[in-house]
């Protein structure tokens, strides 16, 4: 039985972590902007950066699944 596709699918579960991370970051950013609308620009910058860093875990999962499927 060939289980490589299953391994790739399991690697795709890293998306859960990235989703939760970006969700929490965005929720806090909305909170912060509601409290201090004048700090909008700074918060936006930090949010983008945090999202890019949180997204990295999902990207690692993607790279791993690609490697499982194609690297021999």
């Amino acid at each position, binding site marked *: 039985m060939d289980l490589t596709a299953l391994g790739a699918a399991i690697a795709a579960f890293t998306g859960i972590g990235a989703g939760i991370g970006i969700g929490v970051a965005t929720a806090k950013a909305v909170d912060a902007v509601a409290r201090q609308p004048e700090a909008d620009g700074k918060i936006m910058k930090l949010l*983008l*950066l945090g999202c*890019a*860093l949180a*997204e*990295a875990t999902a*990207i*690692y999962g*993607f*790279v791993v699944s*690609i490697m499982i*499927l*194609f690297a021999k």
Partner: protein
Amino acid sequence: MDIGGLLKELLLEDKVLIHFDFMNGFFDINKSIVVTWGVIAVLTLVLLWLTSNMKVHNISNKQLVAEFIVDGLRGITGGMLGEEGYMYRDFMAVVLVFIGASNLVGLVGQVPATMDLNVTAGLALMSIVLVEAAGIHHKGFGKWLKSFSQPMAVVTPMNILELAIRPLSLCMRLFGNVIGATVIMELLKMAVPVIVPAAFSVYFDIFDGLIQAYVFVFLTSLYIKEAIE
């Protein structure tokens, strides 16, 4: 639709463009290297054009644009590096422009140079060497060695592991983001050939590429700042 075939074509294609034979081995030049040569050539031509015929008084619009770009880039990287690491701001600005331009190559129909793991690995290695060299330069060799066991002796293995983890994560983050964006764009082009890919291309080709270049430079600056304090 043959998704598997498309992915295979995209990911497993022969990367070698120019092949040299030596006595016993070989020397290959990958496509990504040639693309980076193109990026370097275009950037150099633009820079030569922007910086030609500069004056102190009565400056032209061209010089104004050049000064605006240099000021902006130095502001971005200088802000990230802080007062102490001010001397590295020009290098980081160059890396920012280079990675940004390499990620935008997808717009003109070429495969982005950063889609090759070798290119991002080289950039990440360059970063970690710069970080450690900055640490040695600012602290001295003895203090740099001692900084591995800071703040506690227990964390020494982690600090040594970080030497390998940091470049690996820098390299994989850039590579994964670019390859992910390219694969998604190719799948989208296959599913809906008109109009829709244009809208998504703005996010995946332009926005994501620039953000990743910024993140790469930001993290390297953060490491430098940490190493020299």
